[in-house]
């Protein structure tokens, strides 16, 4: 049986994937929080250091008398060899008296602020405004482009490392989920085969002793036991059927010989003929029982071929048409869709024959029987609809069991094995067998998913 391809949707629902993804998410969150703390502390430390420098410079200028302020400012600017500091002296009238920086807006006193770079304005800078002697304002700025750059780098690292951790977590989730998922798939495949009747199939055990191995081992023990019990029951049934058939066949031969002897009185010959008829009915039932047993035990698919359902329906209708005609009934075949499915054609024909035989038996004189090849919910299938008494909803499962005859069967001849044969054939094919009320009558549908 080819294994089905793994889809992302399947992986997404596995516990391993969910656990690994959750761990990945927690890990990514941890990284983000760690980086955020480092970022915040670094930025505040660098800012504090800038502010300290600004205040030191400011303290040197603020202490100077008003008349000497312009000179001191120029000297301070000249001494700034790194080119990182900017100073301006604003007069009491708000006019810039000297300096190497222009600030377009008013700045609050004694509160350092960041000024972003703008066209015509240097930046980004950290700026501190201090009141000096004679109503002057001294603006002291410091280039913080390195700090800004560091901040943006930090943010990028934030983003990328968080993203990488999240993707890494997801990929780890997928990678960790693949193997268990493949094993689950293998287990599913075997369980389907077991459900389809392959009781000799066993769940694969990887030998790791993990929970899947433990589960597979438990199921194997269970299947072993079920197989043993079924084989025992089947063996007993088959042995009874087989062992009784052989002597009954001998009795039948003896009766036929007795009937054919010239010295057998006619009354005895007639009795022997009746006994042969009764024996034939018993032998037919044993044969049907063994047939069901054989079908149920079989998982063979060697006989599966592309089968044209419409052709199959026509052939079955052709076979049963004379029987229907005898009762004045008509069999109408309708091929609503062309459907070719993989099936064991002779077995499917046998199933359809049984359904048709029932439809004829249970329909009234002159009734119409429809054989429809069509699709329902996307699945092709064959449907036989009669106008008989139907089967009550609560009995529809029971009639598929051996020897169960529906309450409406009345005096209609039958063994109660026909639908069991149909069910066994449908099961062997993994087809559905649906019995529905046709109001009036019964609709039996063999659903054949492709």
């Amino acid at each position, binding site marked *: 049986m080819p294994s089905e391809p793994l889809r992302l949707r399947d992986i997404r629902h596995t516990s391993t994937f969910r656990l690994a993804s959750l761990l990945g998410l927690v890990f990514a969150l941890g990284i983000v929080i760690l980086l955020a703390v480092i970022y915040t502390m670094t930025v505040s430390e660098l800012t504090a250091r800038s502010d300290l420098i600004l205040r030191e410079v400011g303290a040197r200028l603020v202490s100077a008398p008003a008349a000497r302020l312009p000179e001191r400012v120029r000297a301070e600017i000249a001494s700034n060899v790194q080119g990182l500091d900017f100073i301006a002296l604003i007069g009491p009238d708000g006019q810039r008296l000297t300096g190497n920086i222009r600030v377009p807006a008013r700045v609050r006193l004694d509160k350092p602020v960041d000024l972003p770079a703008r066209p015509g304005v240097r930046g980004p800078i950290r700026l501190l405004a201090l009141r000096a002697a004679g109503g002057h304002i001294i603006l002291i700025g410091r280039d913080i482009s390195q700090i800004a750059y560091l901040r943006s780098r930090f943010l990028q690292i934030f983003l990328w490392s968080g993203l990488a951790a999240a993707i890494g977590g997801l990929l780890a989730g997928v990678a960790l989920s693949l193997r268990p998922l493949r094993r689950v798939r293998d287990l599913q495949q075997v369980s389907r085969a077991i459900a389809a009747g392959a009781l000799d199939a066993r769940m694969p055990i990887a030998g790791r002793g993990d929970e899947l191995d433990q589960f597979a081992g438990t199921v194997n023990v269970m299947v072993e036991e079920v197989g043993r019990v079924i084989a025992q029951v089947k063996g007993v049934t088959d042995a009874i059927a*087989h062992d009784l058939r052989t002597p009954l*066949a*001998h009795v039948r031969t003896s009766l036929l010989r007795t009937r054919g002897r010239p010295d057998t009185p006619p009354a005895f010959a007639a009795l022997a003929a009746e006994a042969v008829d009764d024996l034939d009915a018993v032998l*037919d039932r044993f044969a049907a029982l063994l*047939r069901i047993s054989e079908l149920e035990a079989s998982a063979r698919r060697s006989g599966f071929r592309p089968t044209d359902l419409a052709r199959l329906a026509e052939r079955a209708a052709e076979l*049963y048409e004379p*029987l229907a005609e005898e009762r004045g009934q008509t069999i109408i075949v309708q091929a609503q869709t062309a459907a070719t499915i993989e099936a064991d054609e*002779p077995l499917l*024909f046998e199933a359809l024959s049984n359904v048709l035989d029932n439809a004829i038996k249970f329909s009234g004189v002159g009734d119409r029987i429809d054989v429809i090849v069509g699709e329902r919910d996307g699945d092709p299938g064959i449907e036989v609809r009669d106008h008989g008494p139907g089967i009550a909803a609560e009995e529809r499962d029971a009639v598929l069991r051996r020897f169960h005859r529906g309450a409406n069967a009345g005096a209609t001849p039958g063994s109660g094995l026909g639908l069991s044969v149909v069910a066994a054939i449908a099961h062997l094919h993994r087809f559905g067998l649906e019995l529905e009320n046709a109001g009036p009558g019964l609709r039996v549908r063999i659903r054949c998913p492709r």
Partner: protein
Amino acid sequence: MARILVIEDDPSTAEEIVTELKVHGHHPVHVADGAAALERACHESFDTITLDRMLPGLDGLALVARLRQRHIDVPVLMISALSDVDERIEGLRGGGDDYLTKPFATGEMIARIEVLLRRGRAPTDTTVLRAGGIEMDLVRRQVAVDGEPVRLLHMEFRLLEFLLRNMGEVVSRRMIFEQVWGYYFDPGANLINVHIARLRRKLDRPGRMSAISTIKGEGYRLDAV
């Protein structure tokens, strides 16, 4: 009287087959072992062979394969408890000419042996089959009764052809279903009965016995009437 090699290891089944063959006027030769049976089949002349599928010494399938390798084409009726369709197909592909599952009605076995014997004797190039007033032209696919054309449906034609080819022999309903329709399950007695009845209605002529007789408990027989 035909000389028939009965290869069967089960004493009671062998006795049943031998008795029934004698009752029907044949000369059965029983061998219980596969290797010994092969030896006799290679050095003696038989009209047909009944062969148990599972034998000690040499398996039935292997035995028939060796016979065919040595160009011994005696018709072989394989008799087996293995009733699965696959087993049947394997038996027929392996060289068997017909397949009968155990337990079987002896009438059915005799009917199948008679068919095999007839097949061995019948000319293979026959294009016209006749029985009394019935004439079937296999090439033109036409049937006439007393010179009067009769229209038969496709399966009716095949059914009549099968009965004509086995004229005078009893054929069981199972044999009919296998040979005419090609299926190996039991469709029930009534179904074949109505097909036979429909064919009779087309072939029978007033004041004359029906060509097809029902042999109760065994099957049907077409005779020249």
